[in-house]
Structures are given as C-alpha cells and as structure tokens.
C-alpha cells in the first residue's frame, strides 16, 4: 500500500509541532531553569537519545516495555528511545563517574519518549527538566531536591502549587509483613491507588490480611496532611523498616521547615504508584489548572547498583509543557515579543553596517524586505507594537 499524500501531511498520534510563542515560552522556561540549576551547583549532562533496549529495561518492570519505542540498528541490536532521563544519568554515573567525589549533582533539559495508544490523549514526546543528586542518602539530600523543585516552580512563575511528599518504604515494609502473592498484592495496591475504601476492605478480607498490616493499608487513603500524619503513621507502623521510613520522612520535613517551604508540602503516605525503581521518599507536584501532576521524583537507591555501582541517589523532573498549561490557565496564551525596531530596507553600506552594530549591541532588529516606504513601515510597526522604525539614513538626509 502506498502512503497517500494526506498521510504525508500528518503527524503520528502523540506528537506535535511547537512553534511561535509556546515554543519561545518553553525555551525561555528551559533557560531560566538551567540558570537556576547552575546556581544550585548542578552540572548539565546530555545523554544520548537512544541506547540499548536491555539497558533501559534494567530499570523497569517488563510491563513497561509496551511504552518503549524500540528499533533495530543495522547490526541487529535492539535499541530504545529513552523513556526517561533518570536511567541514562544513573548509567552514566555508575559506569563513568562512580569514582569521582560524591555527591554528583547532574541536570538536564530534554525530551523523553513514551508510546501510548492513540486514543489515550497522552503525549508520546515529553519535554522534561530534571536533576539527580547521586552518592548521598541523607535527609539533607532529599530536602535539597524537594526544595529545589519548589524553587524551580517559583522560577517558572507559578505561585500556587502543592508538593505531595511520601515514602515508598512505608507501604513496602508493611506489605513485607503479609504473605500476599504477587496478584493479590497488585489488586490491593490498585484499590489503595484508586482510593476505593470498600473494595480495599473486601480485598483485604479475601486475602486474609489482618492485624497491624491491615490497619496501615486501611488507613493509607487518609494518611495525608501536616506533621501529625507522621505521628499517626509511627503509631501504625507494623515493623522497624516502616518506622525507619517515617522517621526519615520526619527529618526531611524538619529540614523543609528550616528551608521555609513546608507550607508548600502535604505529607501523603497513600500514594503507592510510581516508577518501579523508587525506594525512599517520593513526591508529586500539583497546581490548579492542570489535571495531572506537573512534576515528580523520588529516591532510587538500588538503581545504580543494577549498572554496577551501588550508589544511593534521588532525583526530580518537571514536565515543561504541563507547566506551560498552568501558565496558560493563569495568564492566557503567551505572545511573541515584537522586535525593538523595524529597519527600512536599502542597500547602503552605512545603513547595513549600522544594523549589524545595533544587533551586536543586543538590540532586536527586524529588517524590512518588502522595500516599503516609511509611512507603510510606520503603519506596520504600529500594528505589530514595534516601538521604533529605523529609516534609511540617505532617505532621512534627502
């Protein structure tokens, strides 16, 4: 079957062109975030767009393969477009930077690629700005990454947003106390995830989970709020690892208070969904105007070990186009800034060199290419809100 001309004018589902003001806004956002990350002593990395499929899948459950774009190189190796940037950065550090002084603070701004069904309304190419803090497992490292996330969203121009902060270790440790098989565990976590208390209770009945573990699982949907949540969780914690997770979170929260950002943070132990590789604190960021979380992250202390260097790590990433959606919601669609001046077209050396000189000095100048007389240029400038018209010097002299 030959491709019809119509098909050749279309884009695959899940990708789109960015141009005009939204493109400029995304680039400006990236520039500001990169400057911020540099001030926090993070160094930018540029991992490749694709790597071996098997390398990528070291980090994920087999199910995730359905979301990974795969292709074969001419030698027959199976390759994958990066579905995230945490894994490439982890691989980079574990294979090349493992003997450098720790911590390593690394950042990136780049797109990731995840296939989703055409009717799922999800983008398959997602622009991310993210950072990873590798080599330190302390509450101070966690607090730095969360505080940086808050600083980044403020830098992006968001005023009202909320970070939901939890810890994977609490639920993991609780489930370790039960004898659930894989299927029952999945069903249970699905009920917790979808916040359905009744089905959760029924599932717990059926799987025979009782005692302190059951008390934790039933309390999970309501374990959100301020510091008191952690007190409550400590009382419920069925074993030492669960208690340690909460105590760690308490120390992180105290540091967030010291940073002065605790007001932005909702402690939330009921979130059980996340990347397969998270082991410790996890967080998501929400803002009015987006029906989705706009940033997320967490601690992943076992991931680098899969690449041969057992270093602890934590990271966060922001989905830039979701931030833009919130900015659109707050301020309307962006507009492209007009140039500082519109210069009349002519072929005089003095005029053209003056044009270059002004641009070198930092002015944004558009050169007319329609050979328009001054009145027409002034009308154009007025219509496009360009503050100034630079006439040809000879014409002015005459």
């Amino acid at each position, binding site marked *: 079957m030959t491709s019809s001309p119509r098909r050749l004018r279309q884009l695959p589902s899940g990708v789109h062109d960015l141009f005009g003001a939204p493109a400029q806004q995304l680039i400006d956002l990236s520039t500001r975030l990169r400057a911020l990350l540099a001030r926090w002593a993070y160094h930018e990395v540029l991992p490749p767009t694709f790597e071996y499929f098997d390398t990528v899948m070291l980090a994920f459950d087999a199910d995730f393969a359905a979301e990974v774009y795969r292709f074969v190189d001419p030698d027959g190796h199976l390759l994958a477009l990066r579905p995230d940037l945490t894994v490439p950065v982890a691989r980079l550090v574990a294979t090349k930077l493992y003997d450098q002084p720790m911590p390593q603070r690394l950042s990136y701004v780049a797109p990731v690629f995840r296939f989703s069904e055409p*009717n799922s309304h999800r983008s398959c190419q997602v622009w991310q700005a993210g950072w990873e803090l590798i080599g330190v497992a302390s509450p101070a490292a966690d607090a730095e990454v969360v505080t940086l996330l808050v600083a980044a969203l403020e830098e992006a121009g968001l005023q009202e947003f909320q970070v939901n902060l939890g810890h994977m270790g609490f639920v993991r440790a609780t489930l370790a106390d039960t004898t659930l098989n894989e299927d029952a565990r999945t069903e249970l976590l699905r009920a917790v995830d*979808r916040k359905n208390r009744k089905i959760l209770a029924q599932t717990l009945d059926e799987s025979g989970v009782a005692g302190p573990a059951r008390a934790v699982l039933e309390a999970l949907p309501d374990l959100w709020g301020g510091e008191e949540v952690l007190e409550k969780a400590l009382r419920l914690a069925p074993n030492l690892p669960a208690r340690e997770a909460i105590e760690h979170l308490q120390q992180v929260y105290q540091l967030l208070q010291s940073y002065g950002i605790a007001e932005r943070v909702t402690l939330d132990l009921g979130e059980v969904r996340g990347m397969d590789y998270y082991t410790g604190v996890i967080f998501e960021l929400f803002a*009015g105007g987006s*029906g*989705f979380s706009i940033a997320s992250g967490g601690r992943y202390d076992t991931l680098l070990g899969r690449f041969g260097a057992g270093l602890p790590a934590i990271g966060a990433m922001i989905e830039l186009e979701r931030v833009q959606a919130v900015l659109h919601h707050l301020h309307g669609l962006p507009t492209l800034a007009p140039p500082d001046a519109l210069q009349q077209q002519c072929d005089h050396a003095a005029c053209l060199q003056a044009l270059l000189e002004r641009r070198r000095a930092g002015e944004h100048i558009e050169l007319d290419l329609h050979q328009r007389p001054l009145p027409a240029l002034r009308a154009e400038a007025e219509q496009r809100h360009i503050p100034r018209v630079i006439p040809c010097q000879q014409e002015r002299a005459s």
Partner: protein
Amino acid sequence: MNDRALVLAMGKGRMVEETLRLWEQLGYDMEPVREALRDRKMIAEAGPFRVLLAKDADVPIYVEQGAADLGITGRDVLRETGADVLVPLLLGTLIPSSRCRLALISPRATRDRNWRLAHNLTIATKYPNVTQEYVDQQGLGAQVIGLSGNVELAPACGMADLIVDIVQSGTTLRENDLVELDTILACEATLIVNRASQKLRPLAIRGLVERLEETERHQVGHKGSEKDGYTV
C-alpha cells in the same frame, strides 16, 4: 486556589434523572441542571458544583483530563475509555438502574456453536476496546467492529456473528431473538475523581464521598451490598 466550585461531569443519557435525584437526596439543588437540560445548555451552576453535561461516553475523559474534578459514569464506559482516574465509590446501590452487564451475545440459532474453533468471527459492539481485550483473553479468532448504536442490527443483517452489548432486563435480546453467552463485565455507576483534584481539593472530595457512603448505608441498612467480584 481552593475556593472555586467543584466541577462535576455528568452524562446526559440513561442515568441522568436518577443521578440528579441522588444529588437532591444529598440536599443539593439540581434545578439549574434540569433547566440547562431543557434549554440544551452544556454547563450549569448548581450549589457547590459547576456541572458539565457531557455525552455519557465522554465523562471519564473530562475527568481524566482535569476539565472536571469528578464525574459519575458507568463502569462499562470507564473501562472502554481506559481513563486513568480514581474510583472512590461504586454507586450501584444508590443508582440501581445503573446495574447491568456487558455480555457476549449470539443469535439464538447459533447459540451452541463452538466459538473457540471458529477462526474468522466478526463481533460488533459499541465497546471495541473492552471487546478486543476479551477476545484476546479468551483466545477467540475474531475481528471486532466498532459501531455507535443499534448493535442488534449487525447479526440480523449478517454483518456480525456475535455482538457485545449492555444487557439490563434482557427484553431487547428476546425481541431480537438473541441470547447471552457470557458476562464480560458487571456494570454499575461509579464516582470518579481526577487525580490532581484529589490532591488539591481533598477535603471537599472526601466530604462528598462520605456523604454518599452515608446515604448508601441508610439505603441498605447495615447489610452492605454484596461483594461485586471485581476490582476497580
């Protein structure tokens, strides 16, 4: 950011009257919504809600995308759209007419055929995604054709061997000389919630869920509804 009205997406179809009565039972004035329905408007301000009147099949999309904070939708529709939303409550008890099943249906004449041995079946349905999942699960050799209504016509005119459709009383089936072969999904209305709204408006949403739960308890006394045998 938390004082705006909760946005509620509701289908204009099958369950609309009973759903409105449920909200009224909870003490909310739904008259603006009835008025909007009469005037064919799409948005109504009703008490603490801004109500979006959508096509039944689209309710989960409005909620998933965050255009609505919450919605009421059938489990069949929810599964068909695959929307990634929270499902804090099943509403079969509170909206009894929403109870039905998605079934695999055959003309009476061919009911005893061994479908597994057929290798080029055609199944017509308004639920192509759920049906395809079922076909794959059961290992049927079948092509699924998506239609937008009157699915019974497809076997009657010879376009499809089987259909997958909602069955409530079974009257339509009998009238068309059709029989149920298998239940694919037990259905009822569900309350669905956008994931971000759950985080940003937890108190408002929990309050609503609790009031619905309480109403349900009053309705069924203390026996509770039977285990439905499925996950959300």
